[in-house]
């Protein structure tokens, strides 16, 4: 149970090497070992979606992934969305549309929507709602989240600038940073 | 949870009776059973592993106490199981009737399930218990067929 394995994971473009227990969840690895507490844990059984991060660019529930499974791979978290203090267009849209209240589920929702919008840059309301249906929010009743995404999808100029994979530029495909 | 059903064994009632109360047969045929020991005339203790949905291989320590046995017709059982994922306890009644060359068994159990296994495995409990029982009875039937064929029954 306590045998340790050394893993190397690139998180938000920076490579980290750590010795971890095989049973350590990726969510706990990010939060406890790396101090990236923007990823939140809401249910630990893969339903609420609060812990969603990108693993090699795809949205995964980090509470259902062991840290050792991320060995040699790239993880993107909410902390990597804004660059130099400038909000990502999706974050900006959430702010403009009042798409968050307590904000606890928000990081997971953002990280769900990033790859969704990459693949569905012209998504309609129904598609947006389906994409969101794996993320639970108790505060907002979802309406403003949907509105935020619609706003972004309709503002084609904004979307064009990042929909083509800007995030990957900061994350998975970025030059590997120094090990920490 | 009520578990109720019937099963027909291909052999005589006396053989069925003996097998149902034989700890070695039970250990061999009940799915997930690792050990079953007869600790007194009317008392068995054993260990079983059960998988229910998100809970994989929960180990239970099980105690079965027999009561009101009327060989080879019927008996009752008090069942108590406890493990890190919860508990089960309840009563079961088994009756055996001659049915041509075979034996018709009827069973009814009223089990209370508690703890994690009840809380997060509820949707699957019914299915899992039925499946385990079916597997067990089928395995016992095969064992009986084997013994009858070998003449060791």
């Amino acid at each position, binding site marked *: 149970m306590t045998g340790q394995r050394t893993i190397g994971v690139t998180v938000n473009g920076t490579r980290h090497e750590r010795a971890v227990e095989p049973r350590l969840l990726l969510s706990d690895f990010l939060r406890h070992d790396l101090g990236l507490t923007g990823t939140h844990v809401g249910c630990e059984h893969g339903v*609420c979606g609060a812990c969603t991060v990108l693993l090699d660019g795809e949205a995964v529930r980090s509470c259902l992934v062991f840290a050792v499974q991320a060995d040699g791979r790239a993880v993107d978290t909410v902390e990597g969305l804004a660059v130099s203090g400038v909000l990502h267009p999706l974050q900006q849209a959430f702010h403009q549309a009042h798409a968050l209240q307590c904000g606890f589920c928000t990081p997971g929702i953002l990280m769900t929507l990033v790859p969704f919008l990459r693949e569905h840059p012209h998504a309609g309301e129904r598609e947006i709602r389906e994409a969101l249906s794996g993320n*639970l929010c108790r505060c907002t009743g979802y309406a403003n989240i949907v509105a935020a995404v619609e706003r972004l999808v309709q503002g084609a100029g904004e979307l064009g600038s990042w929909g083509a994979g800007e995030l990957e530029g900061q994350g998975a495909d970025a030059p590997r940073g120094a090990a920490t | 949870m009520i578990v109720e059903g019937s099963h027909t064994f291909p052999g005589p009632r006396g053989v069925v009776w003996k097998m149902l109360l034989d700890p070695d047969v039970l250990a061999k045929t009940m799915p997930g059973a690792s050990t079953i020991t007869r600790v007194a005339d009317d008392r068995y203790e054993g260990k079983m592993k059960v998988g229910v949905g998100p809970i994989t291989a929960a180990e239970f320590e099980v105690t079965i106490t027999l009561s009101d046995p009327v060989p080879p017709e019927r008996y009752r059982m008090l069942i108590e199981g406890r493990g890190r994922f919860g508990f089960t306890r309840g009563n079961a009644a088994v009756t055996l009737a001659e049915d041509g060359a075979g034996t018709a068994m009827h069973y009814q159990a009223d089990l209370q399930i508690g703890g994690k296994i009840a809380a997060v495995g509820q949707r699957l409990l019914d299915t899992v218990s039925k499946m385990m029982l079916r597997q067990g009875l089928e395995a016992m039937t095969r064992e009986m067929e084997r013994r009858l064929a070998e003449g060791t029954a």
Partner: protein
Amino acid sequence: MSAGRYVGQRVLRLEDAKLLTGRALFVDDVQLPGMLHVAFLRSDEAHATLRGIDASAARARPGVVAVYTAPDLGDYWRPGPLLVPPPPIPGLVFNTATQVPLARDKVRHCGEPLAMVVAESRYLAEDALEDIVVDLDPLPAVTGLEAALATGAPLVHEQFGSNLAAQVRQATGDYAAARAAAHRIIARRFHYDRGASAAIENRGVVAQWDERVDELTVWDTTQAPIPIRNGLAAMLGLRESQVRVIAPFIGGGFGPKIMMFYPEEVLLPWAAIRLGRPLKWIEDRRESFYATTQERGQIHDAELAVAKDGKILGVRDVFLHDTGAYDPYGLTVPINSQCTLLGPYVVPSYESEFTAVFTNKPIVTPVRGAGRQHGVFVMERLLDFAARELDLDRVEIRRRNYIPPDTFPYDHRILFQDFRPLIYDSGDYPAALEKAAEMIGYERFVREEQPRQRRAGRHVGLGIVSYIEGTGIGPYEGARVTVEPSGSVRLATGVGTQGQGHFTTFAQVVAEVLGVDVERVQVSTGDTREFGWGTGTFASRGAVVAGSACHAAAVKVREKIVTLAAEELECAPGDLELVCGRVRVKGSPEHGLSLGELAVKANPLRGAVTPGTEPGLEATAYFGPDRGNAASGVHAMIVEVDPETAQVEIKRYVVVHDCGTVINPMVVEAQVQGGVAHGIGNAFYEQLIFDESGQLMNASFMDYLLPTALDVPTVELAHIETPSPLNPLGTKGVGEAGAIPTGAAFAQAVEDALSGTGVEITEIPLSPGRLFELMAGSQGAGEPGSQGAGDSRSRRDGA
């Protein structure tokens, strides 16, 4: 307070940036050097005698620092405080039994904590839970409310001799006379079942004892940090000034994060002091289904005495309220049910009696709506049935019974949960109804749309209901406003915040008064070091009570600014105005000072100051309302029911809402939308299902279904503003509003969609499975035009 540069405006939230970028601090994000982790062993049994606990193996496990059971707590073991004593209602019976930190002699609900393990990691602490051997001797459990009161029922608390937790009767007018004079008596039994608050952030506590300064710091997911500080200090024998409780960003509250003094809240600080190391406990989701309080189990036997013209003559309601295994929150929930039933209606006579019942289920305390749902459900359903029997339009029967807009303040002549008379401050109920009917297209729907759809084989229905929410109760809140030399304004208040937008709305109030940019107002909430007086965020009171205190403090600071500036600028105070962070002479904008400059002048380093003056541009003020105020509204929805599968789709949802003066419409609308989502969950998806032995059978989000983005429509919303005379802002609460009438609207709409089938809905939640059963049960019971089962029951005597 009328609309201005900020008040009444859609100011974007100031707290968003932190939350959107993952920088906001939630309790689970607190990391301290040397921190240990805590896990709790909880009972698998709902009712059992505790014969013993052997924790020796757990204590011996490497990585385990301590294991505590009830005897280890010594004198610290004691039942929690009674948080809300019963109101002074004559004849009231109340049996107090509050939760204990760790079970000592018996357990009374599943999930009750038995032992506390402290270890180097949460993983190790949970490993050690499995080493603990518990000897529990199961007892028969009580789960049903009527069964709990039956003779010979197992007793949750032996000392009371029964499971009766409370009995309260309130009455006004002469109901017997009303009943005798009635044209019809509409009587039904109504059920409302339990749900979970299900904040996405579970509860958590971090406690740290700093022996260098003899101070305890507790980070707590609480809605009420100040009462928690005060209580902890008393329990631990510390001065209040030695205890700091911080409620940082909280991931949703919804009621159960109130000042509960949960076992974990009480034990972590105690153990942190003993061990001299910081401790963290974060509830997991399964724990939350047992260890966090719940709400909503009630059974009502109610009857409405109604005249031929549909006028209400009186209401009688006798109900049972499930308080769970303990009743630390007193009678708030059932008294809310009792009072809220009266709604926006003139009810000349009212008899209401409830019995609160102990059961072997988790504790019941307020959850968003806090008992108001039940009252609204009962009254609105009774009116629906009355309308049907009297062949009156649903909207018309409501219209005929509304409290007229010119009769405020309106006294219902009973006592509300705040121990004050239930007097409505302001409202315009007919206007809200007309507006909602117009928005949802009521007339057209009833006359054209529904018949057309029905001919096409589609079952669509409309629900339209009214409600009152008593909000903004006392006792008081406070705030401190400080203008700093930088010109930015610091605002501190004691209430905790769980997503309501306080960082923005409170800043709007202060910015309006001080004439500064709203971004210059920095708000601190929920840190007892910053502000130590107040109660907390509950009862939809944050904006009303704390908002008014912010206003009062800002007004005092404004007076200081004007007084000092008048001296500095050598002009009359009345000639000054505060604009864009400056105080200046009206009509002579270049003649002025920035507030920052003035703040420096107000804090001189040398020289004499005028005796009696205070340094700085700072003021603290408090606000306590005379009584709660009455927010109100009308909800209308259109649903379609699939008669084959009993699936219900909500096609449209309209809310007309009156919370008095709106500080930030964007925030208010979002609160309502979120409340409606919660209400939809309660109405159709969410139900905690216990078996008869008290086992919760759906303790995960796989089986306990929260509404998703596919289930909640975007609400169409309109505001009506009847300012409250009870506070300077004129505002009323809104936090719970959306969730309150949803069940009633849903029931009416579904029943309307199934009209002619005889289905009558008297229970919530109404899952597709349950609706299917009701539909199957009523097959053939009624042809179109018949009232089915309703007729036979409507004349029966009431409970």
